[in-house]
């Protein structure tokens, strides 16, 4: 019996990769620990090690094949003393690139690593940003690259801007967002810190008070809990406490929200936490153009900014305008899909889900408007209320807990300032009110999805 070698998942969120190179050829003897192949993900090139003893009998996926789905059989090994399998080669599973079968990431089918869950390209792209001049050339860019480009451009522009955090320099970023920055800007401006969040958040904040423009990367915002004292007590409040004397122009950035199968301590949306603090700017973009334009704005801001990214969105590609200086206004929401029947207010990864839900609803004759808040503080009430006045029905879709959430806040605003426009109570579609479970099926149950968002929209349209 041959042993099937399958395309490995090299990170919790990887769903496909490129088989860059075979380091063993058909007929080669293989021992455990041998490097058989090199596999590229969107983040890095990884070596694929053998765990079995035998002979590499058949290579099923040739070197250079892109978009090989995790779990696809890539080669066969014959165990020692076994007869070579004489069966004809199975059709190369890799040959079918796992192009975005779904717009959403792999929370599905009991196994987040399933190839059909691939989020290669957002299926339903947000509408073009009216802030971008018509006729501008657009370049497909991942969110990860867009963030990096924004930082690099601002670092070229202003010598005071520097990046610090865990693994940002030599490792090129735990999620590869800072890839290439060390090579261009050197170790003075791209600083690897020890694992010491409270300490380096304080040092970054102090450096901002001292006149620099730090970008502090948290490997994820879960770890920023250790540093939240400096974000709130030191960075956010000092300008006020000093009567406007002491500024703190700093960006705290990193992935926020649920990733995939990493359990409760690594899966949480801190948007509502930071958005409740006067003195902070809180930004949570969805697509690459917004990520870039708002990151540049964040770095230029004289105020402390919490910039919430999303790991599951890093690898998605969107059109980014090829402008020399693409800077977007902070505090402005964007209508990413116009509609007249119901408004779905959302942000970050929720935008993709809401657009998917809107697509479903369109098939049922419900024309949903989708608003991407983009900035959580200051909140663009005007855009929300204007949309409410048009549709008279509103739900909030938020990948986060329901209690004391951005959704709660939007509901308050609608009650206080949009009551007369409401034809139905405002609903929130959020994650379940539990710590995020690890088990794939429970995780799926706990997180919002397009189905639930569509269901919420039907409810406020009284169409259930």
């Amino acid at each position: 019996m041959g042993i099937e070698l399958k395309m490995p998942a090299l990170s919790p969120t990887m769903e496909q990769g490129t088989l860059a190179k075979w380091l063993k050829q058909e007929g080669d003897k293989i021992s455990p620990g041998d490097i058989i192949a090199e596999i590229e993900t969107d983040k890095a090139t990884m070596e694929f090690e053998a765990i079995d003893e035998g002979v590499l009998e058949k290579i099923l996926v040739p070197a250079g094949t892109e978009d090989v789905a995790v779990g696809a059989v890539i080669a066969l090994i014959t165990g020692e003393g076994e007869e070579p399998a004489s069966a004809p080669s199975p059709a190369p599973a890799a040959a079918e690139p796992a192009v975005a079968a779904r717009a959403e990431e792999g929370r599905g089918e009991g196994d987040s690593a399933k190839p059909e869950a691939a989020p290669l390209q957002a299926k339903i792209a947000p509408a073009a940003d009216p802030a971008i001049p018509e006729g501008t050339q657009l370049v497909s860019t991942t969110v990860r690259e867009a963030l990096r480009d924004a930082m690099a451009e601002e670092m070229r522009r202003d010598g005071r801007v520097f990046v610090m955090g865990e693994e940002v320099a030599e490792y090129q970023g735990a999620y590869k967002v800072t890839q290439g920055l060390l090579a261009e800007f050197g170790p003075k401006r791209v600083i690897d810190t020890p694992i010491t969040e409270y300490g380096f958040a304080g040092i970054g904040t102090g450096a901002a008070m001292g006149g620099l423009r730090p970008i502090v990367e948290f490997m994820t915002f879960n770890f920023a809990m250790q540093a939240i004292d400096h974000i709130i007590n030191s960075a956010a409040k000092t300008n006020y406490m000093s009567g406007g004397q002491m500024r703190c122009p700093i960006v705290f950035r990193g992935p926020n929200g649920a990733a995939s199968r990493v359990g409760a301590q690594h899966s949480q949306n801190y948007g509502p936490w930071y958005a409740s603090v006067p003195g902070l700017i809180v930004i949570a973009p969805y697509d690459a153009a917004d990520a870039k334009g708002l990151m540049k704005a964040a770095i230029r801001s004289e105020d402390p900014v919490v910039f919430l990214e999303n790991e599951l969105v890093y690898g998605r590609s969107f059109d980014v305008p090829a402008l020399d200086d693409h800077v977007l206004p902070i505090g402005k929401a964007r209508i990413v899909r116009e509609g007249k029947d119901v408004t779905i207010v959302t942000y970050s990864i929720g935008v993709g889900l809401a657009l998917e839900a809107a697509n479903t609803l369109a098939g049922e004759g419900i024309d949903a408007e989708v608003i991407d808040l983009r900035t959580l503080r200051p909140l663009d009430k005007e855009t929300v209320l204007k949309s409410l006045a048009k549709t008279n029905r509103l739900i909030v879709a938020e990948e986060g807990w329901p209690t004391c959430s951005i959704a709660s806040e939007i509901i308050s605003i609608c009650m206080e300032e949009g009551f007369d426009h409401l034809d139905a109570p405002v609903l929130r579609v959020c994650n379940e009110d539990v710590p995020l479970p690890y088990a794939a099926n429970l995780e799926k149950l706990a997180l919002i999805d397009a189905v639930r968002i569509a269901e919420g929209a039907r409810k406020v349209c009284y169409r259930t």
Partner: protein
Amino acid sequence: MAKKPAKASATAADDADFMLHSLQEAFEAKKRYAATQAEMLEFYRQMLLIRRFEEKAGQLYGLGLIGGFCHLYIGQEAVAIGLQSALDNDRDSVITGYRDHGHMLAYGIDPNVIMAELTGREAGISKGKGGSMHMFSTEHKFYGGHGIVGAQVALGGGLALAHQYNEDGGLCLAYFGDGAANQGQVYETFNMAALWNLPIVFVVEDNQYAMGTSTKRSSAETRFYRRGTSFRIPGMEVNGMDVLEVRAAAEVAFAHVRSGKGPVLMECNTYRYRGHSMSDPAKYRTREEVQEQRDHHDPIEGLKKTLIEAGKTEDELKAIDKAIRAEVAQAADFAETSPEPTPGELYTDVLVEEY
């Protein structure tokens, strides 16, 4: 004040380099700063200003004119004056915790605007929006005034990083108390400061009580100057009740940092005569203990003695006191009579920009 012989610095027989990490010997060799008479008079005047200012603040607190928390610096004056008199004010920065009145006065910042901040008035240095614990003067490179115990240490590390980044030749002087010395972020900062060779002098103002808990009840190692050892930060132990000794130690520490050798940890042993804050009756120590400090270790009386030995007369020194009392009375008057912030100030300075 010394709690043990100064030469008892830690050793590590297996690390020949280790002994190089003490600056104590250099300090012991010239333990008292050879001040000119003019310098001594200025130190005297500054320490007395802090003393009288704080006494007045205590009074105003009692009258209800100062609210909230108010931490007085009485007894600790020699630390701020000894250290800050050695700074290069064009380059260096200072940061401290909430017991910050003395450090501001040491800069020569107008007592009026400090007192007016304590009373929460528009003319206060933070427009009345910071209070006793949150005062800043970016003009003097004084970066606060921080209310969270130990936070100023990491922030000070950032100021030092900015000095290094800008290559401005400055250093950061970061003060914290024996209580803050047990905060984790202090050691996170020690690690990075030593790792990156940051120009920073960490000063533990050991006034022997973290609020009501004595150092021996809270600290496994009460010789705080040793606490940088595992980060290869040289330590110094200094009598914080003698301004000339503090100044001499400052010279050694600053020279070390300015020569690019990285951080220094200095422990200044001192004593606060008053409670932790105005609301602390200080029942955790005896009257006799406080009296012993006042009678035998008072930094102002100590310097007065030196000045008289150097030929100054009681009358000359009394005249200084009189002038300071008038200055402080005037500041109190200003702080009492100047208007509170207008209601419109409620929403200013939350953010710098408009969005």
